[in-house]
């Protein structure tokens, strides 16, 4: 009660919430008892200084609490912990629960389920996932599958406002967590398989008013370029590129969805996110760079104007959807201190950029099988392609690595300042890919390619790895039979956690890579582990189980096995490796602690 009275008082007095909100998250992100931002902090390191659980005692970890979310599709994302309340979300229909960690047994304080238009369900590519909620200033902010953005009172669960950001009847849906920056809730959109034109938009935390909306492609005024856009790297492209790199007006259905994880640098006052595949997976009808699909953007959160943009995969021919997360690190590269942005792209390269101006510093293959390009030319910023791996309409191009699911999918990495290493779940998947002509019908799929996905060299489908971002090289790895589709969390106890599709939750020594502990979950995990301290003073580790996502969709939706091209290639890959023999559907949050 006390909190809501304070919030009302602030409103009544017209206090500047913008500054308060910003300060609040800046303070809270440094309190490792809490987990208030999707990526733990604005730099998205998913690192916690908590150290009760260590490499020495993690073997005594045991499940102390679990909670069914009431949904049975893929559970991506992570819960939040704010003060003594945990906020749990679910896959569609996107339930939210507030859990009181201060009371014995952790009872439910409130629950909320948005009213949704179920016509969003059949146009949600790749399972009905959701990646979590945000918190600021006594509010929970979230997206819904049917394209709404809304705010709840964090104390009562009461809906404060709800506005439409995306229209499922045009194939636009929302699965992302978004990010609160200052007094704005910044979100994007899903629907790259439906010929949408992606965008990022900022909504006022207080009212839901849309403050700006910047498209991924189109005329400059739509893409919202700052006057000094790409000043440091004019060869990346500039004014006009959002239309001129497309035949005719194909940019109108240009894709560039924006459903990944966002990061923010408060000193530079820039948000970072990236865009997905260009519209229709068939490259032949859209010859050109197709800017700004497959692009890392840096924008001013107040104006929306783009400071710089770097396209990773020009004229995509593989569905290397570029939406993966960005980790903001201060690194020493070649003896020079840089404000770096590290990005593990689906295309198999780990990019390091100077996040002040987008200058490319390094790009190294993080999955060895990557064969569509030899390397990334650091001068031009462009890939040096292997011509026979470039796909085209009517030709079934064979043995391309990585697959469209990427060398890593959306599952976010973590970084430990103690080890200097990044911890990533990756995919060892390759594919055959054949583009075909497709007609644009608003609201209908606009895919235009058949994809057969299979395990890469070695026969395993995934790996959990430690990567040295400064050196651009793998330090150690643990192969897994299935793609590693969970995020990771690493702590000052030098333990790193991840989960697997075959239902294991594992702890590994962050320095040596030695497996330390594992336990079985009821369903495969594609969620992001996180850690916090409850009012009882104990450190806890939490992760969702609930198989799904693109790879897990055949099991989540109980698809038949006859068609290996089903689910955009997931059926073949998932049933090849026997996913249906190791897991069924689920939707549970699991919390672990050291045994007393």
């Amino acid at each position, binding site marked *: 009660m006390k909190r809501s009275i304070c919030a009302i008082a602030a409103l009544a007095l017209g206090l500047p919430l913008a500054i308060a909100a910003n300060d609040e998250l800046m303070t809270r992100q440094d309190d490792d008892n809490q987990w208030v931002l999707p990526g733990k902090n604005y730099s998205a390191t998913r690192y916690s200084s908590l150290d009760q659980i260590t490499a020495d005692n993690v073997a005594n970890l045991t499940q102390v609490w679990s909670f069914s979310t*009431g949904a049975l599709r893929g559970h991506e994302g992570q819960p939040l912990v704010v003060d003594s309340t945990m906020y749990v979300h679910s896959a569609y229909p996107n339930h939210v629960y507030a859990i009181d960690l201060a009371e014995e047994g952790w009872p439910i304080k409130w629950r909320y*389920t948005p*009213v*949704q*238009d*179920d*016509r969003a*369900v*059949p*146009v*949600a*590519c*790749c399972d009905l996932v959701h990646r979590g909620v945000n918190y600021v200033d006594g509010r929970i902010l979230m997206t819904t599958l049917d394209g709404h953005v809304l705010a709840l009172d964090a104390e009562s669960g009461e809906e404060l406002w*709800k506005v*439409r950001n995306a229209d499922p*009847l045009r194939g636009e849906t929302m699965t992302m967590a978004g990010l609160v920056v200052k007094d704005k809730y910044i979100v994007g959109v899903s629907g790259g*398989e439906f010929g949408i034109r992606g965008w990022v938009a900022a909504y006022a935390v207080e009212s839901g008013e849309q403050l700006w909306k910047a498209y991924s492609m189109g005329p400059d005024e739509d893409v919202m370029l700052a006057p000094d856009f790409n000043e440091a790297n004019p060869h990346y492209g500039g004014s006009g590129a959002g239309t001129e790199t497309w035949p005719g007006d194909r940019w109108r259905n240009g894709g560039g969805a924006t459903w990944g994880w966002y990061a923010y640098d408060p000193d530079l006052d820039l948000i970072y996110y990236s865009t997905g595949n260009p519209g229709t997976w068939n490259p032949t009808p859209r010859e050109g760079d197709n800017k700004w699909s497959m692009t890392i953007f840096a924008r001013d959160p107040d104006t929306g104007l783009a400071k710089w943009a770097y396209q990773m995969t020009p004229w995509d021919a593989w569905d290397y959807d570029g939406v993966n997360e960005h980790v903001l690190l201060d690194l020493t590269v070649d003896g020079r201190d840089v404000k770096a942005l590290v990005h593990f792209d689906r295309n198999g390269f780990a990019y390091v950029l100077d996040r002040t101006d987008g200058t490319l510093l390094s790009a190294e293959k993080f999955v060895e099988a990557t064969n569509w390009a030899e390397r990334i030319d650091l001068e031009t910023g462009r890939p040096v392609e292997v011509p026979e791996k470039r796909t085209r309409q009517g030709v079934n191009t064979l043995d391309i690595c990585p697959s469209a699911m990427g060398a890593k999918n959306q599952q976010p990495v973590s970084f430990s300042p103690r080890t200097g290493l990044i911890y990533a779940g990756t995919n060892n998947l390759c594919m055959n890919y054949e583009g*075909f*002509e*497709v*007609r644009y*019908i*608003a*609201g*209908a*799929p*606009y*895919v*235009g390619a*058949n*994809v057969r996905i299979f395990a890469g060299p070695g026969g395993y489908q995934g790996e959990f790895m430690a990567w040295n971002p400064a050196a651009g090289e793998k330090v150690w790895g643990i192969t897994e039979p299935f793609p590693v589709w969970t995020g990771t969390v690493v702590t000052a106890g030098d333990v790193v956690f991840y989960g697997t599709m075959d239902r294991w939750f594992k702890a590994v020594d962050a320095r040596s890579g030695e497996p330390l502990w594992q336990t079985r979950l009821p369903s495969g995990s594609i969620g992001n582990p996180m850690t916090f301290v409850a009012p009882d003073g104990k450190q806890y580790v939490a992760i969702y189980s609930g198989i799904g996502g693109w790879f897990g*969709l055949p099991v989540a*939706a109980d*698809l*038949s*096995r*006859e*068609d*290996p*091209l*089903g*689910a*955009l290639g*997931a*059926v073949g890959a998932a049933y090849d490796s026997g996913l249906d023999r190791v897991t069924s559907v689920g939707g549970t949050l699991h919390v672990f602690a050291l045994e007393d």
Partner: protein
Amino acid sequence: MTGTSRGVVAARSVAATVGACALLAAQAPAAAPVPAQAPALRVCGDPENLPFSNERLEGFENRIAAVVAAELGATPVYAWWPHQRGLVRNTIDAGTCDVIFGVPEGLDFVLWTEPYYRSSYVMAYRGDRGYDFRSLDAPELHELRIGVHVNTPPEESLARRGLLDNVSTYSLFFDPRGDRDRPRKLLDDLVAGTLDVAVAWGPLAGWTATTSDAPIELVPLEDEPGVPLSFDISMGVAKGNEALKGRLESAIDRRRAEILAILEEYGVPLVPAGASGAADPNPEAAPPASAPTAPAPAPRRLNPFTGNADMAAEGRALYFEVGCQGCHGGGGGGGMATSVIDDAWTFGSDDEALFRLIKGEMPDQTMPTVYSVLEDDEVWKILAFIRSVYAGDPGRIDW
């Protein structure tokens, strides 16, 4: 679009539901063991859906059922099941009851009687606010808060007028976890003043106007091109049960005045029977209530291309070109959507059902309705391809 809209018309007629009612339903036959009693009219009733029906028999459909049963010399015996998704499958098809009252035209799973009333969607507003609306075209609507049930035809009418930014959507469906999203919330919010305008199915709004202390004005909405907003309401019986259909129609004819009085008592806004809007693209689909002969069942089309390899090949090309593959898989095995090569068919396996599904005309369909843009021939070709890759039980082929 039209078919989709129709499915969600009158009483909420879809959504997931729970199995507990099967027990209740099973009690129905056992409840009438005394042979000397009047024969039973076994009604598939909704246990909690006023003003239509409830277990205490307070709804107008309960009252009409009693009148019709009396005309037949029978006693209504109820099997309770929410009028939502799975209704027909779990009631008439399961043999627990014989007639559903309040079936909108277009509900294809049953055989309809001639309609016993016709109503429309209405816009409702408080009469003490100084508004005087005649239609959804009133310019003031752009400044007002409008509520509508999700997925109902007037949502499309609002979208066409660029009003969606002002619209709050409400669930039409029973929430098995609780009742906070019950259909009445839309009208409760209107009465409470959190909405300025509610666009709702006439009987729901009419009941609120009749029972609420607030002065509620109702404006019936007229059909629009491609968006039917008024609907005939019939009783539904099992397909093939022509005998019961005939007896019910005879009862409707004889008791028409009493039925009308009940509807008026509940404030149901009535549209003249057969007054299908001029815009209705298929007026003959809605027979006038006083038709001298029973309406013929809709002709069930057959695919002219089934088994034609050339047409199936063209259909395969279309299957990829227009995006079917995106959801149903490159080999038809599904993905975002269901498999089309096995023998599980949500809306029926015959040509007519699948044609209408692709065209977006099937009540309650979840598949996007965007393929209304395809030519009929294109749909038949795609269907010919789908038939050619069928991998299900050969014994279940009915095309």
